[in-house]
């Protein structure tokens, strides 16, 4: 009888109930919130559901030495986590993004690319603020990239510059990407007049197949020559797009934009979520990262819309741009372009900005990868 009680007592010591702390419960609650937002509100469900479940997985109270935790060498989760830690997953996601993105809107209106550049100021605005709050330059660079509104790039850069902050940065980036409509709309309304919101832009011209094939080749060579440190992201993005547009590699393009990106997204979401263990995640630094992330999104949106307004001062009457496409300079594709369309339609139900906003939106993907390359070359 005594042995049975002793065994039961020993078993109890191994259970989650015996090892749980309030921090574990808070993190599990945050994970459940993510899952709820993903399922009920349908906010970025492909990301929030795996990250939310990963948070629960990573915060099950454990006794050290069971070889199951994500930070224990050679555990299954630890092996899957190597793709995040060493930066394999983000370039594979970029391959899929390249294979599913239609750059026609950008090719037909290349001038709108500059809006994508203006919105990247959010990254560096957050960098300056993070330095002012006492973060080291490498940490500030990793935090700043949240303003690019690009989850894979944020993971890629933070895994190189500040791995210890990666969980908070990734969760912050994906949370704000899900909240793009909530964050951007008030800023857009605040910065534009009714008259500006009514500006109509001519329909973009049709783009030939040859232009679409030349686009990824020229784009890659030029950007990679300027920022070679962005090679993994830029190379995969443009390669994926070439697979799509070449017209002769249909199967490869379908795999890249289908099963491959699905598998990698599942793994990246789950492992990033599992890496947010209570003892590392629940800190003042994480709260500051969330605050700076929000500020970087606000700066990026403000700079995008403000840039179009300033540009309009130099454009002749009749060829002015609608400033509502300025918010789409961040690389949350197609969410921020959809916000442009929605806000534009509220002002004039017959004014469709979606295709115009897609141009700075996809330029933002290129811009944030270039910005990540610059930060890496300075700080990595």
């Amino acid at each position: 009888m005594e042995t049975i009680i002793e065994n039961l007592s020993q078993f109890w010591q191994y259970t989650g109930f015996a090892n749980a702390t309030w921090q574990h419960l808070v993190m599990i609650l945050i994970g459940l919130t993510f899952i709820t937002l993903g399922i009920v509100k349908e906010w970025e469900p492909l990301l929030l559901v795996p990250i939310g479940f990963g948070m629960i997985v990573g915060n099950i109270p454990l006794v050290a030495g069971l070889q199951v935790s994500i930070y224990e060498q050679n555990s299954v989760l630890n092996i899957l986590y190597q793709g995040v830690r060493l930066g394999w997953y983000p370039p594979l996601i970029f391959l899929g993004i390249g294979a599913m993105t239609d750059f026609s809107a950008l090719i037909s209106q290349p001038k709108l690319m500059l809006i994508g550049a203006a919105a990247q100021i959010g990254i560096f605005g957050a960098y300056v603020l993070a330095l002012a709050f006492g973060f080291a330059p490498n940490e500030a660079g990793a935090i700043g990239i949240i303003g690019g509104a690009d989850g894979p790039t944020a993971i890629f850069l933070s895994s190189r510059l500040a791995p210890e902050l990666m969980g908070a940065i990734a969760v912050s980036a994906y949370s704000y990407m899900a909240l793009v409509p909530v964050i951007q709309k008030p800023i857009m309304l605040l910065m534009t007049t009714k008259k500006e919101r009514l500006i109509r832009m001519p329909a973009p011209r049709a783009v030939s197949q040859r232009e679409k094939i030349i686009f990824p080749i020229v784009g890659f060579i030029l950007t990679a020559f300027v920022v070679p440190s962005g090679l993994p992201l830029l190379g995969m993005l443009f390669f994926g797009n070439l697979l799509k547009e070449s017209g002769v590699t249909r199967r490869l393009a379908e795999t890249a934009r289908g099963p491959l990106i699905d598998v990698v997204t599942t793994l990246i979401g789950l492992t990033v979520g599992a890496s947010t263990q209570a003892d590392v995640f629940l800190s003042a630094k994480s709260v500051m990262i969330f605050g700076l992330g929000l500020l970087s999104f606000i700066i990026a949106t403000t700079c995008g819309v403000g840039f179009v307004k300033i540009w309009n001062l130099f454009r002749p009457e009749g060829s002015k741009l609608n400033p509502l496409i300025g918010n789409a300079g961040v690389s949350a594709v197609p969410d921020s372009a959809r916000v442009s369309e929605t806000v534009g339609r509220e002002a004039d139900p017959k004014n469709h900005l979606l295709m115009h906003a897609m141009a700075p939106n996809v330029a933002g993907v290129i811009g944030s990868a270039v910005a990540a390359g610059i930060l890496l070359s300075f700080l990595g």
Partner: protein
Amino acid sequence: MTTTLVLLDVAAKAARMAQQDPYGWIMTLVAVSVVFLTLFLLQYCYRFIGWASTREEAPTGVHSQKAARRKDAAGKAGAETEVAAAIATALSLEASGEVPAVIGLALDRYFSESVHDKESYIITIKRKY
């Protein structure tokens, strides 16, 4: 071992940056300039490619009829892009989420014929003997 060395390198670079540019203004100025310069160069490349492409399609001599037809088709595609956006918008009144945007893009791709892969449809079988 390699990871540790990389992190040490990052720490050394960060320390140097903290000393040389404590407020981050120099880094910001340089980085923003590089991002702008890269996308500025890129947009000029694409402007040139677009210009060359449309110039090739401009009506000249005996090919004028054919070129005019192409121009008509391009105009139609431009209009159809608007149609695609309009359909997407109409759908979004009924449904929310990504569906309208996806339908809009799919229609646009369909109208501009980029969704169709070009296959040779020639099957070559080499006899082994």
